[in-house]
């Protein structure tokens, strides 16, 4: 995993991925946006998790993918950063 990522960067990348790949252009995506609230279903959430794996090498295990951790780009970033730190 890259050591140069921080939560802010990760949030930005996740929001960018959601905007470009998953939601209609009219949908506003902020770090604190609820993923379900902007219309994302469970398959879209899997795509986001796999995006993190592909782009940053962060392979999140199922156990930590709780509803709270995948509530928003911000909560997912926080969880990913914390998990990555534990692995180092």
């Amino acid at each position: 995993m890259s050591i140069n990522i921080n939560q802010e960067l990760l949030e930005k990348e996740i929001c960018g991925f959601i905007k470009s790949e998953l939601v209609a252009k009219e949908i506003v995506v902020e770090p604190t946006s609820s993923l379900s609230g902007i219309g994302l279903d469970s398959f879209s959430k899997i795509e986001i998790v796999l995006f993190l794996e592909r782009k940053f090498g962060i392979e999140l295990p199922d156990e930590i993918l709780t509803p709270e951790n995948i509530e928003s780009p911000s909560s997912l970033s926080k969880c990913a950063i914390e998990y990555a730190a534990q692995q180092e």
Partner: protein
Amino acid sequence: MNTPRNKNNQEYPESIYFNGSDYFQILLDRHIKKNKGIGNIGCLIFEIEKGKTDLKAFVSKKVASTFIKWLSSIYLKNTLISPPIWKIKSQSVGEVLTYTKAREPVIYDQKNFPTFKLEAAGLIKVELIETEIKNHLIFYWHHALFDAKGAEFVARYLIGDVEHMDIENYVPAFEQWPLRDLLDDAKNVKSFLMKNRGVEVSTCDPLDEKEASQIAYHVIPFTEEETLQIKKKAQTYTRLAISPFYLGATSFLLQEVIKSKNQRLVSFQIPVPQDKRKRGIFQPGIGNQVSYLFFRLYPQHFTSFKETIDEINRQLKDQIKERIPKKYAGLMSLFLKLPIQVYEYIVKGPTKGKLASFYFSDTGQSLKLDGNSPFVVLDATHLPPANKLPGFTIVFMEFEGRLKIVIAYATNRLNAKDLLYFEKEFRHLLL
């Protein structure tokens, strides 16, 4: 003839691009008809409270609108020398709406479905049935014209939940696929699909070609509390997506039924549709905006319910990583260039004509209305297209927080005892 326009002065187009997924639905239509079924027809039923607004007058007005007239004038133009395309018929296409006053409760049965001919237009029908206690709006559509989301959009328009019709976004744009990428993707997904060539695809009973296809529907409803309980339980098996939990339960129970009939389970092959639309909007409304994930399960994956779900989850992640749905959409668009008979021969080959072990769909909470309608919808049910091969189609849907399982089954494949088993065991596995 003047081209009709909507309130925003957008033109209703006279022809509409066809996509690969629509062509696949035509193939399914042929498959169903060859197996003595009525065709690839879907049905949405809304049970509506009797209220102040006259449903018949309201829906009649909607059906007379330019949008519905235009929609019901769409027909398929398909010749050997040119790719298929949707065109608009200028002549009248007959009645779209029928109204009945009934004393008896409405029974969900495929016998009541209309028949559609793709080349003749009139690919949608609306039926209003008024009983003593409530009204029913039943919307039928040919699945080549649009998918369940597209049907839902029209149904919402009919009962007033959707007011504005943005034709520019409703009609799909031409999909331009770079040929080189398309060929690479097609090669990749073809090898994925051919991995199991020759392996027997198990269905709920052996096929007898002479038998008629008689389809009935069985609904298993859950309360709001039970639905919450199911979602909580699903979390302990599969964190992100609930569909593997539902698909796991279905596969696990169906293989038990197969074994109970002294049949051998060799493999389950299950294509699962994936909505390609961007989230947050309903558009485009015309055309099947879906691709597929393909699950393959063998006897070793049924040692426990958990093992079945774990395997489905593993395959799900692998396929999303490999972008299988996107690549398969590309492959389907490539097939558009083939005559339907050749296409049918290629697609049916790997499964020896069966196509699937069963059909599964998880439509989620999509039937929730937004509150613009003057009507109170008490319940909604999606009856999927089905026929005797493979004889088992299942839809998991949620309306107003209540999960509902709809099983479409061939009456000469499954009996009352099997359905009782499904009812009891689905409750046991999911709750």
